[in-house]
């Protein structure tokens, strides 16, 4: 399992282009969102986008180079390969949180923007959305042809981010939704984790059937 995680992290960080891309991704995204809407939603958008981009990149390399045959021939199993990808997505989310936090911290230090760096409720909401996002897009990648899967993944990502993270109008109303507010958000995390586990089992089944 650790070997699979190392593989995915190496994939998304190898080469000068990838390294530069990772460094500039957050500031570019911040500039694109224009710094002009509530900081906590910008933070959430950045965390989700960065994590999504990392997971998608690791998939796209496997598609681009047709490396499935190689990976499956290594001392591992198909079930482990799938579990590895789900675990990788969680680790990437944690990394994305810290990484984005670092940039926002810099903006705070230079008093360019004011952001509560310890706003746990934003992190909790981002985590719920991320669990839901991953639960939908990973089975798509294991079932559908790469280009179709990529289209539906982007669609799901844009839908979730637009609906919950970037919707300025009535945003507080959305986060008062029971998914995020019931039992202080614990219910949403529970739902997200149940989806995540079911999605893992579904992906193992789908990948096992794939030649």
């Amino acid at each position: 399992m650790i070997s699979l995680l190392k593989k995915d992290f190496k994939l998304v960080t190898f080469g000068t282009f990838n390294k530069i891309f990772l460094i500039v991704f957050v500031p570019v995204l911040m500039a694109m969102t224009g710094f002009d809407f509530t900081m906590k939603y910008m933070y959430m958008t950045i965390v989700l986008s960065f994590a999504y981009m990392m997971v998608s990149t690791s998939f796209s390399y496997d598609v681009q180079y047709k490396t499935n045959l190689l990976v499956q021939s290594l001392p591992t199993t198909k079930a482990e390969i799938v579990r590895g990808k789900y675990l990788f997505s969680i680790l990437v989310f944690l990394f994305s949180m810290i990484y984005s936090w670092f940039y926002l911290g810099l903006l705070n230090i230079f008093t360019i923007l004011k952001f509560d760096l310890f706003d746990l409720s934003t992190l909790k909401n981002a985590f719920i959305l991320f669990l839901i996002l991953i639960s939908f897009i990973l089975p798509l990648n294991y079932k559908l042809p790469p280009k179709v899967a990529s289209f539906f993944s982007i669609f799901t990502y844009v839908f979730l981010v637009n609906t919950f993270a970037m919707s300025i109008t009535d945003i507080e109303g959305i986060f008062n939704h029971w998914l995020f507010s019931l039992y202080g958000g614990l219910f949403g995390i529970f739902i997200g984790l149940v989806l995540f586990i079911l999605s893992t089992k579904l992906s193992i089944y789908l990948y096992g059937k794939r030649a």
Partner: protein
Amino acid sequence: MLEIKNLNKRFKEGFEIRDLSFKLDKGYIMGFIGPNGSGKTTTIKLMMNLLTKDSGNINLFGLDHIKHEKEIKDRIGFVYDESHFYEDMTMRQMKSIIEPFYSKWDNATFNNYMKRFDLNPDLRIKKLSKGMKMKYSLALALSHKAELIIMDEPTSGLDPIFRREILDILYNIIQDEDVSIFFSTHITTDLEKIADYITYINNGSLVFSLSKDEVMEKYHIIKGDPDILDQNLRNKLLGVRETKVGFEGLIDDTNLIKGLPNERIIIEKPSLEDVMYYTKKVN
């Protein structure tokens, strides 16, 4: 080392592997031959559990290939026909991805092979020729103390010099009696140089699995004038090729041609290609 019993796999498109059985002992090279589309790659994918079998048993090192998948793959080195590497990576970067998967990975061995094959580890994989990629695959396959090397068409598309080099490397590997090689190819001349056993499949079915010597002893090419090729003789031949001046056919039992006029026929030892050619006609 490797034992396949009554293996079956059917695809929606109609192609199937039918009741395939053969075995390979420790320390030998088995050539796995058959025409294009005969099921060689499918069989290898079934052995590696990349495809799910319908029925039958595949045992490697005495272990079931599904129940002990990780343990078995840890002891296998594989080389495929096409490159399945991350081509934008250097060979060093790619090695660093593969290395952690193996419990007995040995960097010193890997570096030795890279030096011996004259490969610069900092070169991007996409810059390598097919022959160099094959050598790199071989270096990876040989650097974790694999006991069985599985190769799918390793010499196809290589020029004769590279092919000879690869065969020499394999020949040297087999001097270590603990290593076996399973080597699929349709270039039968390669096997005449190095194989101990030949397993031949056609249309997903086993034609034979014998030692190379047995194959050479069992089969004979018979040549003669067209007028002695009557229906009786025709029935005894596994395959026949006729021209205006004569015929040439394959038999698997010389007793069958007793009674034919010796002065009018020539009996020769066939090449593996002859055996494959004529038996394909039958199958």
